[in-house]
């Protein structure tokens, strides 16, 4: 029996978190939802009474997240600890989503579980691609660090230890094992989360697959007619970015 933990990253004050919870309550039972809070400690104390954890990780915050190589390591480690508690041992899968990545179909967890089964995957991601040896700007920036390639050689269980994957960080779907093992991998070098998470999972032996047609309404930047309604009409399961809930 599968049970999915919805792990939602947010940093807004309590009023907006309340709105976010109202939205999510249509798509996930609130006792299967965990807020990873990246805002201030003061705001964290005033949050509604739902499972939540304060993420005290300097690498989560920054002004230029891509160039400063933002990390979700703190979230992954805190969630792994949460999952290890006796009451949470039955969570078999984790659906991570940033606050502006919204589910738009009620059976999104079923759809993701089904897709995972079809793909025989351990991780499903948006805009997943292979970037090593390419003109990808993140990859080219990272290989300027002499410790980058040796790091993958050190941790990889794969024959080809040069592979580097990138996914969009706004949401991803993980098996419990893939999530916890990725969380347990020490961040010995600074790598941007969109490269670090999928590449670690890959080199630990997990199978990652792209969500293909589900990428249509999951973008880095909004386009003119991107909305919840449009996403639903186009058969999408989620939409990103939607900054304001109506």
């Amino acid at each position, binding site marked *: 029996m599968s049970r999915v933990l919805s792990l939602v990253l947010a940093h807004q004050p309590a009023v907006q978190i309340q709105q976010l919870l109202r939205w999510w309550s249509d798509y996930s039972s609130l006792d299967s939802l965990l807020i990873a809070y990246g805002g201030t400690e003061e705001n964290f104390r005033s949050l509604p009474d739902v499972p939540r954890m304060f993420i005290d990780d300097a690498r989560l915050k920054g002004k230029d997240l891509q160039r400063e190589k933002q990390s979700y390591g703190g979230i992954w480690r805190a969630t792994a600890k949460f999952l290890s508690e006796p009451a949470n041992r039955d969570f078999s899968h984790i659906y991570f989503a940033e606050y502006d990545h919204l589910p738009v179909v009620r059976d999104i967890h079923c759809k993701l579980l089904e897709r995972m089964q079809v793909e025989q995957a351990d991780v499903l991601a948006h805009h997943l691609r292979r*970037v090593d040896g390419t003109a990808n700007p993140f990859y080219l920036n990272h290989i300027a660090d002499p410790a980058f390639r040796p790091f993958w050689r050190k941790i990889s*269980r794969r024959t080809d230890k040069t592979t580097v994957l990138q996914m969009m960080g706004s949401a991803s779907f993980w098996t419990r094992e893939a999530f916890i093992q990725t969380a347990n991998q020490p961040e010995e070098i600074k790598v941007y989360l969109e490269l670090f998470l999928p590449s670690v999972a890959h080199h630990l*032996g997990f*199978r990652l697959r*792209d969500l293909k047609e589900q990428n249509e309404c999951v973008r880095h930047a909004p386009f003119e007619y991107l909305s919840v309604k449009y996403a639903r009409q186009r058969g999408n399961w989620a939409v990103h970015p939607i900054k304001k809930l109506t």
Partner: protein
Amino acid sequence: MNNIKMKIVRPVMLWLFRQLGSDILDAETGAVISRALLVPWRGRILILGTVPDLVPVFQPEARMVQWKRTLGFTCHPAPDFPHEPRS
């Protein structure tokens, strides 16, 4: 200042690169994968414009000559690596 760069200078420069540049074809399929301006610069080639994750590949030459090589571009296929359990 950064705002001006992002809102005005960047789009203008990208537009210029597209106008002056040429289509980049996938060396394997022949499909247009991007458009960019390629500029030889100090023994290297600058790729100016927003391009996808291009992989540079030297092209096969049906007729062998010593004076010409063609450098093309392609993209990696979508990741489809098997699950490799811990040994």
